[in-house]
């Protein structure tokens, strides 16, 4: 479970991610800014470190030099001052400190802390300090170094000031022997580095500001550059979209000789090539349609004359000798077949030329099925045709003439070739399509025959060819596909053959037929 706010953030996040994916320009500008920021950040950081190092080194050098001079002066003073006991020595050191501090305060640059006399390690030493620097502010490791050996030691440190704040300092310390008493004192010079810190802050702020300004400028430059590069790409996209939408005359403007100009040139070449190819194909298709129409007319006129003459002879045959009469009969019958063949060829040519047109109207497949099986031709041949599933309307938008033709063809096929007297017509539907199956219980087809059954002029068994053109199933499949549907066959040798016509409903498709053709057992 996610809270509504979380969901909102997630949606906003995915919206931004989506925009990031889609906008090349955002990506170019974004990554330019990110990389520039990284480079500027690294450079600034290195620069600042260098400046800080330089400032610290200069300060520490001057502090050590100043402290050394101070220590030398103290030593000299102590050698000339005779002190009787430890208390006197302490007093003398205190005076020296005061004088040192006064000179230090005069310039306002340092404080002095005196610890001692130094006893055993761990034993707190009395402290005398100028200003308000506490002895505890002196770094412990420095105290140890000073107590442990001769020489000069220094550290950077932060010391507390009133109000709980701290200030940055350099502490320089050294051990001091009072020759007259033999006591040791630790003396620490505390130099403020506030000036250096201020300088460093100034440099840092200047660098940050300059860096920020640079990033903004780079972002602007990236925006301008990406616009310059991407605008032609966008133009190319729009042109390509218009081209794809069928405006084949769309071309890009070619300006200059750069890569983008070459892209435009290539695009235009591609467009011109496609346009001429399409024009060529369109022209071919038109020629084909024209040819079909011309052939149709040119053949039909002489065929009409021949047929009329054949009819006249056929009518008069009773007065002739038997062989001439038979010749007239054959002439009449074969002319009929020739006419059917011509009509079928014209239909196929129209499919091939893409010139076939649908006259759509609401068609009830159940009603078509009932009407077709009532055809008296079937009962004359003593073929029993049953209809299943036709008690409810099975309606789709279809060309009634073509659907009727397909169904008649399938039923006639089943009656003529299956050697069975039992044919079942089933109608069914789902939300996307309607299906109609014509199933016989005859000899069936081998799997090789099933593959060839829709081939033009193919017959399962030429000896069984009881008339017909051999084009019926090709045309039936053409009719089905013209509707956006399909005609499929399933057959099992010895058990029968099953043709399934599937037509889409308005807005649907025929991908999931309401009926499947029969299959070999164990064939899925």
């Amino acid at each position, binding site marked *: 479970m996610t809270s509504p706010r979380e969901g909102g953030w997630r949606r906003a996040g995915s919206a931004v991610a989506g925009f990031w994916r889609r906008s090349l320009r955002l990506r170019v500008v974004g990554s330019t800014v990110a990389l520039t920021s990284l480079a500027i950040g690294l450079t600034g950081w290195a620069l600042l470190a260098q400046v800080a190092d330089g400032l610290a080194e200069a300060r520490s050098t001057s502090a050590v030099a100043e402290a050394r001079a101070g220590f030398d002066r103290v030593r000299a003073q102590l050698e000339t001052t005779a002190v009787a006991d430890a208390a006197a020595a302490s007093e003398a050191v205190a005076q020296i400190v005061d004088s040192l501090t006064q000179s230090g305060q005069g310039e306002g640059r340092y404080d002095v802390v005196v610890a001692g006399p130094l006893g055993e390690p761990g034993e707190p030493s009395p402290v005398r300090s100028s200003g308000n620097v506490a002895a505890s502010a002196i770094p412990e490791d420095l105290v140890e170094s000073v107590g442990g050996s001769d020489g000069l030691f220094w550290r950077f440190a932060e010391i507390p000031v009133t109000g709980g704040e701290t200030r940055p300092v350099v502490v320089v310390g050294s051990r001091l022997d009072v020759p007259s008493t033999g006591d040791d004192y630790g003396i620490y010079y505390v130099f403020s580095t506030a000036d250096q810190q201020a300088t460093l802050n100034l440099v840092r702020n200047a660098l940050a500001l300059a860096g920020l300004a640079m990033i903004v400028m780079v972002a602007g430059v990236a925006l301008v550059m990406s616009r310059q590069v991407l605008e032609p790409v966008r133009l190319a996209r729009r042109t390509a979209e218009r081209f794809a939408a069928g405006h084949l005359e769309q071309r890009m403007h070619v300006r200059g000789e750069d890569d983008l100009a070459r892209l435009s040139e290539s695009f235009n070449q591609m467009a011109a090539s496609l346009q001429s190819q399409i024009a060529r194909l369109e022209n071919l298709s038109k020629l084909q349609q024209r040819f079909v129409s011309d052939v149709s*007319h040119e053949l039909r*006129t002489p065929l*009409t004359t021949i047929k009329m003459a054949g009819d006249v002879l056929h*009518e008069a045959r009773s007065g002739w000798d038997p062989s001439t009469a038979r010749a007239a009969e054959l002439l009449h019958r074969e002319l009929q077949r020739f006419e059917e063949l011509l009509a079928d060829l014209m239909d196929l040519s129209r499919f091939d030329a893409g010139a076939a047109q649908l006259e759509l109207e609401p068609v009830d497949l159940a009603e078509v099925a009932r009407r077709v099986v009532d055809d008296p031709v079937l009962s004359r041949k003593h073929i029993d045709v049953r209809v299943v599933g036709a008690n409810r309307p099975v309606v789709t938008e279809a060309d009634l003439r073509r659907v009727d033709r397909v169904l008649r063809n399938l039923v006639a096929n089943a009656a003529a070739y299956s050697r069975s007297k039992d044919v079942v017509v089933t109608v069914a539907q789902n939300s996307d399509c309607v299906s109609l199956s014509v199933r016989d219980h005859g000899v069936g087809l081998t799997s090789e025959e099933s593959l060839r059954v829709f081939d033009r002029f193919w017959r399962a068994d030429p000896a069984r060819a009881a008339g017909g053109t051999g084009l019926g199933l090709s045309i039936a499949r053409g009719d089905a596909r013209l509707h956006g549907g399909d005609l499929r066959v399933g057959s099992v040798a010895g058990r029968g053959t099953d043709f399934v016509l599937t037509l889409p409903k308005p807005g649907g498709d025929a991908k999931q037929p309401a009926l499947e053709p029969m299959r070999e057992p164990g064939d899925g």
Partner: protein
Amino acid sequence: MSHRRTHHDRVLIVDDDASLAEMLSIVLEGEGLTTAVCRSGDKVPAAMGSFRPDVVLLDLMLPGVDGMEVCRRIRESSNVPIVMLTARTDTDDVVAGLAAGADDYIVKPFKNSELVARIRARLRRTDQLLEPLEFGDIVLDPAGHTVTRGGQPLELTPLEFDLLACLLGTPEQVFTREVLLQKVWGYHHPGDTKLVNVHMTRLRSKIEDDAENPSIIRTVRGVGYQAIAPS
């Protein structure tokens, strides 16, 4: 020669194909009709005057003048029934031919019996009306096959006369297209509704004041047509 055959019905065959024209003549003469042949559209007007046909059989694919044009020219001066021969099954062509004034059409190739039936149907009056009929200001006279509206004569073809008489004969009754095909065209013409639609459009353009908003013959959507009884 018997007395009956002294007034043969006359068919003018307009066809550029010599063999087909001759074959048409043979078959129609065999049925007791008198025929004449025009081999080109240009000669049709002259033949109309000299031969005075009762039916014109017109092939749509003519050289020179287009078949549609011939059809239109005949209609300018005559109401003779016209049957078109067409090799094209395209609906557009058939509708264009009917709109140009043809009464019926027949697609090549055809059976002789079918051809004769169509010609006979055009020659035979369907006798929708035995007595003069008054319908508002429209008067139909079956004797002279004349129609007047408000005293003005209307130029209707015999087929249009029969169609109008059929509808006005029983006002308010809805006739389906199938029934009209049966009663007016006189033979079974299954599902050929465009034949009725085109002729209804032509009839309305002649009798209605505004063919777009008919006040005499109403279309009953999805069913057919009915005459609106005059108030």
